[in-house]
């Protein structure tokens, strides 16, 4: 849908959301043209078992996304916002643009332009992604929304927005990207309000929500992510560096009794390309836990080396399969083991295998998929079955599940076993 600005602002007025309309109006004066798209998406889901600390319903929400793009001679302006009615939210009026609480979730608000011929600059709120894993992230330290992911919202909501300056340079030797986030954008991490979790001693939820101190000092609690990538032979190779914080509040301050985000640096590399009739990828990263370099502090995670490799291809017509192996190798494991309750320590090596199966039917209008995480070392698993049916160019129906299995309450996926859920969604796109 291509529309003149006049129509755009008119259609926004009834929304009563002055911020977006005002921005469109002010930038509209010299607009070449504006495109407006979006969708209305309703979802309802239930837990498949009782959770003593959470609602039986896992999702009951209706959202309207408006996505506008305006072209100028000098670049473009992007604004994308969700307006949400979440029946399970406790305080819908209180909009928190950092963690997505409240009736509005601002996904994008940025300008993109070229200050020089071989560089681009994107400034503002934006979604950032890089790395080669499929639902596994090593060098992508951009914020994730784990609650949306585990509760079964559309997969696009796994990526939470960053407020950043994203600069790209394209000299002949390769491409450089640098993302500077002046104030840390944490993950929308599992905090017990909607998803129960293991707190170190037991499974808890709304009875014990995590209330971590945010890193919110401008230019002090900042993050820098960098990537250099270029083709090598017929493969795409990349180097990465990150300077910032653990993205979930994995640190604990015994003085205040609060969780916090300890310092973290990450260095890594990846390669991907075609192999036979399929695609292969490999990625590694070293997580340097800056506040616990010796591994002796039980309140801060140890350093880790992480590695993944994967292969995907079409197995038979319209059925494709992708498998990955992923490992986290904790440094100084002995010192870590001494600091946690006996019997609840994780292994030195946490191995995870994933398998994605995708079957496309009826001219790709019906897509059946199953993504499985399985950890032989943790003896737990996470299954994500999904069915999506495109009824027409506008209407889409989805059904999906998030099933957690585990031998123990304290493992990565095992801690979510009371959160298993199934849900149904309907979306109208325009």
């Amino acid at each position, binding site marked *: 849908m291509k529309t003149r600005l006049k129509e755009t602002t008119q259609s926004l007025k009834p929304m009563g959301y002055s911020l977006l309309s005002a921005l469109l109006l002010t930038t509209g004066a010299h607009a070449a043209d504006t495109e407006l798209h979006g969708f209305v998406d309703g979802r309802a889901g239930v837990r498949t078992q009782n959770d003593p600390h959470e609602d039986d319903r896992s999702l009951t929400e209706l959202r309207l996304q408006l996505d506008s*793009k305006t072209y100028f001679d000098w670049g473009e302006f992007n604004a994308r916002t969700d307006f949400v009615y979440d029946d399970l939210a406790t305080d819908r009026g209180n909009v928190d643009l950092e963690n997505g609480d409240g009736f509005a979730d601002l996904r994008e608000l940025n300008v993109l332009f070229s200050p020089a011929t071989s560089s681009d600059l994107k400034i503002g709120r934006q979604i950032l992604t890089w790395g080669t894993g499929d639902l596994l992230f090593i060098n992508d330290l951009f914020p994730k929304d784990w609650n949306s992911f585990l509760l079964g919202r559309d997969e696009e909501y796994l990526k939470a927005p960053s407020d950043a300056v994203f600069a790209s340079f394209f000299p002949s030797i390769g491409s450089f990207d640098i993302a500077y986030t002046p104030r840390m954008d944490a993950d929308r991490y599992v905090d017990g309000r909607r998803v129960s979790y293991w707190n170190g001693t037991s499974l808890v939820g709304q009875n014990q929500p995590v209330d971590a101190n945010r890193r919110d000092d401008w230019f002090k609690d900042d993050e820098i992510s960098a990537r250099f990538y270029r083709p090598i032979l017929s493969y795409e190779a990349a180097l990465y560096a990150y300077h910032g914080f653990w993205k979930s509040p994995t640190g604990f301050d015994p003085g205040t009794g609060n969780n916090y985000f300890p310092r973290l640096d990450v260095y890594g590399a990846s390669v991907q390309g075609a192999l036979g009739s399929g695609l292969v990828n490999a990625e590694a990263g070293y997580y340097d836990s800056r506040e616990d370099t010796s591994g002796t502090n039980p309140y801060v995670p140890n350093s880790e080396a992480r590695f993944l490799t994967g292969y995907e291809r079409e197995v038979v017509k319209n059925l494709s399969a992708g498998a990955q192996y992923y490992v986290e190798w904790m440094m100084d494991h002995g010192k870590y083991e001494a600091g946690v309750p006996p019997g609840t320590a994780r292994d030195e090596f946490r191995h995870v295998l994933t398998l994605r199966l995708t079957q496309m039917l009826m001219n790709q209008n019906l897509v059946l998929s199953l993504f499985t995480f399985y950890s032989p070392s943790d003896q737990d698993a996470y299954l994500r079955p999904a069915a999506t049916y495109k009824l027409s160019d506008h209407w889409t129906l989805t059904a999906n599940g998030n099933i957690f299995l585990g031998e123990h309450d304290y493992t990565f996926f095992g801690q979510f076993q009371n959160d298993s859920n199934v849900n149904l969604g309907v979306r109208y796109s325009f």
Partner: protein
Amino acid sequence: MKKTIMTSVLLGLAASSFAELSVDEIVNKANTAAYYAGKDGRAEVEMNIIDKSGSTRTRKFALLRMNTEGGSQKFYVYFKEPADLYKQVFLVWKEVAEGKDDSRWMWLPALNLKRSIAPGDKRTSFVGSDFVYEDVSGRNLNEDTHELVETTGTQYVVKNTPKKPGDVEFSTYTVKIDKDTFLPRAAEYFDKNGKLYRTVEATKVETIQGFPTVTESVVKDLNTGGSTVNTFNNIEYNIGLDENIFTERFLRRPPREVTK
């Protein structure tokens, strides 16, 4: 009367000079006519996917194509409709050298993610249509052996047999090529049992900037009863594209050549 004789002599001469073309020359000329017009080009495409009950789904996209070194090419497809494909980009680096695979990527804007398409997926449906990925950029001539099976007054009929039958769903396909323009006008695909199951037809041809150009094509899947009609509009050649457009930089930032 004299004029008629002269005409037939001329036609006869012309026909005999055509007849001297080898099958490789014919398929090369056809490939050039179908995929290499100008140094580069641009088109707006409307794709209507019609299932056997008659219900239609529509995709609209802008297509850029550029010829690069040694017969290689790059393609950039920017989706405008439907809403769930809006701003997605399909990028192809087509390789013609023996033993080199084409590279294909899909850009997913909501995830800010460039996703590679596996080489083995080249015969997979392109965005749910009856066209396959490989149809967008053209099948590499080296993938098949070619045989001239018939020459009519106006057309060559070439039978193509894949060198690696395991990589494709057809056993052979025949292509009818117009003698005057060398444009492929119709193709028929036969399955492993020799049964005709798929047809592709150039239903409208116009001359644009001197290049005979297909402006409407129809593919039919005889097994499903479905068909897809592609209509090409606003076609331009030799627009002076920059090769940088066909890189990740311009996936993140679609150029005005496709968005305007």
